[in-house]
């Protein structure tokens, strides 16, 4: 019987697992990692939002400390990184919703969606910062 052959017969060679150090990095892999990294960055970045709200709920002098920090070079850099992580994660999330619905999983489209996440994340960040600096 076939089933007993499978149990007692010579072992069929097992499929090789991918060797990570020689595995070609694909854009979908890179964006999967970037989704996780941007999510972890937002986890810490939420402290900026908490600081902003606590400062605004306290007196004007406390808020001035936050204001001075966020307007400094380091503050702007952190806010820029936070906004990129937010937009990248947002678009990445929409990509996952499309995949969850069963669309865009085929070879050309899944790579295009991954590239769209990368480009869209940066584009949205630059557009929003442009609006922030232009509109007063």
């Amino acid at each position: 019987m076939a089933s007993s052959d499978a149990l007692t017969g010579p072992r069929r060679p097992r499929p090789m697992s991918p060797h990570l150090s020689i595995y070609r990095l694909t854009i979908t892999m890179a964006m999967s990692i970037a989704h996780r990294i941007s999510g972890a960055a937002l986890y810490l970045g939420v402290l900026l939002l908490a600081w902003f709200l606590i400062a605004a709920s306290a007196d004007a002098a406390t808020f001035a400390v936050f204001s001075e920090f966020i307007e400094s070079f380091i503050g702007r850099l952190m806010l820029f990184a936070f906004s990129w992580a937010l937009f990248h994660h947002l678009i990445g999330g929409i990509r996952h919703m499309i995949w969850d619905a069963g669309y865009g999983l085929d070879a050309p489209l899944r790579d295009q969606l991954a590239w769209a996440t990368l480009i869209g994340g940066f584009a949205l960040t630059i557009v929003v910062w442009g609006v922030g600096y232009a509109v007063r």
Partner: protein
Amino acid sequence: MADNLGDLRTPLGRVRFLGSARMGTNDAWLIHVTSVALVPLTVGFVWLMLDLLHTDYNGVRAELGRPVPAILLLAFILSGIVHMELGMRSIIVDYIGGHSRTWALAANTCFAALVALACVYATLRIGFN
């Protein structure tokens, strides 16, 4: 082993919490619901922050003291923090094992709860002051 028929884990495996705890469905559901909710809420949040960008202390308090921006902010904070707590939980479970995992999971929950409380308290304080 008579009580083990519906559960193929060994008794030792069960006391070590190995295998499915059958609680994953709710977590998966919550992270998906919050992710869908966060799409419009993030757009609203960014809009609100752009609005507050060139205002001072009094301007920020006046804007966040209005009901619609405050409710939008509270919805963004609460769904965002539930989402990030679940997300960090899956990162911890992927990379950390043993006792460190237990501590990391507890720290994650405490951090998320503390940040949520701080943000909600501050937002309500602005609104009700």
